[in-house]
């Protein structure tokens, strides 16, 4: 099993969710996050005060998948979230040892 963590632009949440639903992925965790990579924040002045946004608001998606789905999911996320500009985000993949469904103790891919 693989854990997919995707940091995307806020505006791309709906397109990415739709793209994942289209390939049959329903379950995901969505987090509101802040951060930056190479895309640094910016400063806005309002009424003489300086408001610096150095950590940019982003959306983080987390999914744990059977390995055979991973490439399809990565493909779906990248094509839905890409604008070609700095700030489109990143996808991280990592191995997952096991999964347990709390309701009935089911384990492994069956619990996903």
């Amino acid at each position, binding site marked *: 099993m693989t854990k997919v963590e995707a940091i995307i*632009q*806020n*505006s791309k949440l*709906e397109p990415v969710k739709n793209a994942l639903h289209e390939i049959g992925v329903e379950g995901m965790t969505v987090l509101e*996050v802040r951060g930056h990579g190479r895309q640094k924040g910016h400063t*806005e002045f309002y*009424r003489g005060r300086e408001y610096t*946004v150095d950590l940019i*608001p982003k959306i983080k998606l987390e999914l744990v998948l059977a390995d055979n789905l991973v490439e399809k999911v990565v493909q779906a996320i990248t094509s839905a979230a890409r604008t070609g500009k700095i700030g489109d985000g990143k996808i991280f993949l990592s191995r997952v040892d096991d999964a347990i469904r709390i309701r009935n103790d089911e384990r492994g891919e069956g619990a996903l």
Partner: protein
Amino acid sequence: MISELRNAYAEQSARIRQAFEASGDGRAAVAQRTVLLEEIVRGLWRDNISQQLDGPANFALVALGGFGRGWLFPYSDIDLLFLHEDQATEEAFRDAIRRFSQELWDLRLKLSPATRTLAECDRFDANNLEFTVSLLDCRYLAGDAEVFARLHDKLIPRLIMRESQSLVQCLADLTRERHAKYGETVFHLEPNVKDAPGGLRDYNMACWLALISAMDKLGGWPDSKSLLPPSARRQLEPALDFLMSVRGFLHFRHGRDDNALTWADQDEAAARKIGVPETVTAAQWMKVYFGHARAIHRVSTQLLEEIPAAWSSLYRHFQHWRSRISNADFSVVDGLVFLQQPAAVHDPQVLLRMFDFMAHHGLKLSTTTEYRIEQVLPSLASTPPKGAELWQYLQVILLEPYAADALRAMQSLRLLTLLLPELKTIDSLVVRDFYHRYTVDEHSFRAIESLHQLKQSQSEWDHRYGEIFGELERPELLFLSLLLHDTGKGAAVDDHVRCSLEIASHCLDRLDLEPSDRETVLFLIENHLELSAVLRRDIFDAQTVSTFAEKMGTPERLKMLCLMTYADIKSVNPEALTPWKAENIWQVYITTANYLNRHADQRLHANTGNENMLRLQALAPGAGKKIRSFVEGLPARYLRACTSEEVLRHFAMAQRLDSDPVQLHLQRGRHWYELTVVTGDRHALFATMAGALAAWGMNIVKANAFSNQSGVVVDTFHFTDRFRTLELNLPEWERFQRSITSVLAGEADLERMLRERLRSEGSAAAKVRIQTRIEFDDRCSSHSTLLQVIAQDRPGLLHRISSRFAHHKCNIDIALIDTEGQMAIDVFYLTSNGAKLTADDQRKLRAALLQELNGD
């Protein structure tokens, strides 16, 4: 033996369930289960403790809590007290009690046993309030009746009399804690019928408070039937029947002591006619639930308010202090409002003033007052107050700090829907939405409440939004929009915004709102999801911001919509407004506000079919070409900032310029005075106007300056009258306007007037030091240079800044003047010889301004 008992218990329980499923009668079901459990425990008593039910001596079995009350729901705990005269029997029967308890557990009953001596029962432990409270429902089951009688007849009354203050205080604290856990409201989409406000626990609490109060007075047990006043009983009994049926239904359905009324439970309860005579929809069934829960909540909170006053001197002192706010119409006793003249309840104006009084002071209505209001509702329904008069009262209520509580009280009495029938469809309405926690009406009240609470909040975000809220010119329009924004949810349509708009439109017609106010309210309702939609786009993209800014049109509307969004999200559920969202809304707000200031000089062309232009022509069909010529070349912002009525007034003033070259219009608003001057453009006009106002001691808080293609200037100054010159002397209005006219005509010596004013005032030290900031921007306009000046606000500041412009031959195309506390934030669009300022012009002007502003 145990298997026989288990079978018998299962058989009897199944019989009770069958009877409940046939009748839906919760009260009967809990009574039958109580009897069943009594038989079981008495049987076990005979088997394990004593062959004789009334033996042994000095040891008794007592039912407590729900079992004691005779309210055993299908999966409720069974509270039992093993009561001993002293420790001798406790030691002697220890093993027998263990066997007794074990057999009950083997039946899979949830036994909560307590073993106490009489002396132990006499101790009040604030950390184990539940035990003392459970004694209030104690009932003899078996054993030595004498021991029970000593507990019941002597010990408990003595304990209650001794500890009544602490007991009531602890009960009140626990109740408030429990209510806070459920957001202080009855109106949850999936309520807990036991613990949420308006649930069975509130009913119990009302009875306990009444019982403690009565025992404290009588020194013994009162007649349980006269515990609650008849008016309260009338409301509570049907509510209790309903809730008992619902809780019984939930226990049977869930197979455990789970009292959460989920959406699936609501569907099933409605289909099975639980507590109602005929089949209804789940939404209608929930309205019945909320009606009953509301009655219980109302009575229990009134008792909470009333009873502590009898004991706590601090509380009495506070209530006595509150009673000083009584006036000729209303008296305040123990935080509850009474009518001084009961007959006055027939007067709708007094009624509305009473809710304003509540909203102002944060008070509740007394039961008597509520009863009186309920009595007059039918006659009020035939001639309800309406039109501008109703709006006048309603807006005053909406602006008060406890407006939401007053609205809830009006809603609870059905007065709000009588005055605003448009709210009927959302009264106690459950709309199933994963994020929403409250009914639609409660959500709207919470949104209003959350704006009022911004001022007191310690949260950083509330503080920031609170500052914008403090700047609103017409907050009542925002409150009205929030009250009506979700009315469309009562209709079974996909687009609730469109439907809310239609409903609100009827409501605004009846309230007879001014056309411009009506436009604002409808704008806010129509766009109340717009900012949330922007949050789903790239908020750092210039195109997103410009599109949104164009839609908002004016900074005032932007502020209102931003606050509306903030309050709307915050009222969805306590976790909905994350700091992440608050920050994003703020980001959109400041970038859009900046955009509106920096794109203010796009010129109007009267023939381009601008929507506002078409409306103006429709309003003044005879004006034809003349009005087009007046509007031609004015900045687009002018039409956004001014209502149609104001534009037509300016146009009429411009038409009179031939006979009188300086046209003035002075009016008083809620926060400040507004002076509009329409005249031909001339050198240093803005500086002269600003100087004339400063010379009169007026503090300019906002100003707009616009000019059209033919050189007609429309300058509007909003100012506060620091010395109340105009407020206290009506004849001064005339003299003030004459003085302004003569200054503009060059007949009066402005510099001398200013010198005299400054000399008489002296100089006061500033409370907050604001550093002067001067910023030029050449990019945001095609033909002028934007200058933003941030400086310490002080008398005559605008005159000094704009005089520098005149001195450097800079022409003001647009001026947008604002003040925040002691900080002046002034934006000017300047040209020099009809073009943008050169780098050299900017350098010289910056130096001159810094010298002028920092030279004090």
